[in-house]
């Protein structure tokens, strides 16, 4: 029993540090995707609501493709596909040097696309809950479209979309385990490494579960805060 615990220690021969680092990579990756994926998803949702055909079609295709493609494939396409394509292009243009897509960067791009696709559906649902009257009131006050969106619509969207987005976030946290394929060492890969080095799969998978549960709990706290923040006005409802 003590041997097992010492495997988790932070000292000599313990995997504590390694697991912690893996967790940090997981968090960093997921966190970096949020400021890219969510606005992009919002953009896609706005496109899908457009009266014009082109943005609507583009939004539908985007959402179907990146929701439909296995995440692993999206990841490989960005990491290898894009790299090979760009390399070819550069060679054509007579540039001999090597071009590299950073693994972290590729993962961020790929998962942001996926996050955007899934979150766009959440945003779309949220848009449906904003009464037409809000747009009309804003227009009749002469507010510009920008002000209407930023000051009136977005804060109300956030409140409704948060639960859905929190689902997207949890999925993202767990999807990020795919990055081991492109040599990023996240929590899942670190667990696998530890297992193969120590032959203690039960212990490490259990700890891995616990760490993920901890992340879920932490993000639960954050989301609850955010929900309270954006839902301030509903609190006092009679």
């Amino acid at each position, binding site marked *: 029993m003590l041997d097992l615990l010492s495997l988790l220690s932070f000292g000599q021969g313990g995997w504590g540090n390694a697991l912690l680092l893996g967790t940090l990579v997981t968090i960093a990756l997921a966190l970096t995707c949020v400021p890219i994926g969510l606005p992009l998803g919002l953009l896609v949702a706005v496109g899908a609501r457009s009266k014009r055909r082109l943005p609507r079609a583009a939004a539908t295709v985007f959402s*179907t493709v990146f929701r439909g493609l*296995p995440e*692993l494939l999206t990841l490989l396409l960005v990491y290898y596909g894009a790299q090979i394509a760009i390399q070819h292009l550069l060679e054509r243009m007579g540039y001999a040097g090597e071009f590299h897509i950073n693994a972290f960067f590729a993962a961020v791009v790929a998962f942001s696309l996926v996050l955007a696709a899934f979150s766009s*559906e959440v945003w779309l649902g949220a848009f449906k809950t904003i009464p037409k009257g809000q747009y009309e009131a804003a227009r009749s006050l002469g507010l510009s479209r920008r002000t209407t969106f930023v000051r009136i619509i977005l804060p109300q969207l956030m409140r409704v979309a948060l639960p859905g987005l929190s689902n997207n976030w949890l999925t993202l946290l767990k999807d990020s385990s795919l990055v081991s394929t492109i040599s990023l060492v996240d929590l899942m890969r670190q667990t696998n490494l530890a297992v193969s080095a120590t032959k203690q799969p*039960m212990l490490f*998978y259990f700890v891995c*579960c616990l760490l*993920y549960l901890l992340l879920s*709990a932490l993000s639960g706290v954050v989301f609850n805060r955010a929900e309270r923040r954006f839902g301030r006005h509903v609190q006092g409802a009679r």
Partner: protein
Amino acid sequence: MSELVMSLLGYVIDPELLERYGARMLEGLGITIKLVALSYFLGLLLGWMLALGRMSGNKAVQLPCRAYIYFFRGSPLLAQLFLLYYGLGSLRGFWQDVGLWWFFRDAWYCSVLAFTLNTAAYQAEIFRGSLLAIPKGQYEACRALGLSRFTTMVRVVLPQSMLVALGPLGNELILMIKASAIASLVTVYDVMGVARLAFSRSFDFEVYLWAAVLYLIIVEIIRRALKRIEARLSRHVVP
């Protein structure tokens, strides 16, 4: 004409590769469909019970349901499957004693179980959300008419809440189909599993593209089917 199509396809599809992995890919597709259909349906039943338990006023019912949902939503399916198959599976003596070894011995059963347990947690939350969306007035009207709780649920609440739940349920289905690749951890190879296997031997990206096409077709079929069902469920909603 058909020759032309074939020769055009020849540019896209490597016939040799197709011969070697085509059939297995379809087999994998079969596995995907069977695994997802079965666990999704079982998860639906379990999810319903969990949703009702989670909304129960009785703390002794509510808390375990909450814990279940939290655990299965909060941790990776991969780890859940691993702990179930290799973890519980290592207790061979115990299972033989209780006469369940036939179940835990089998990778397929274990995959179905793990997937069911996992999706049930997600579906429970979806159902809960959709139940919360039913106006209180509907329940009150049912009570005022003296309808039993069963009739209220089956005839009045369910048909309405399904309309709300349909979209998220569709998402969950798509996610499950993609997640079925995880079953390759316990030697159950679905489409993506086969594609990875084929790739690891041939190193030809093409197999991934086949998988992608299959996935996109499935997702598109689901999307259209959902649209149909939605149209049917929302006959009463005036456009």
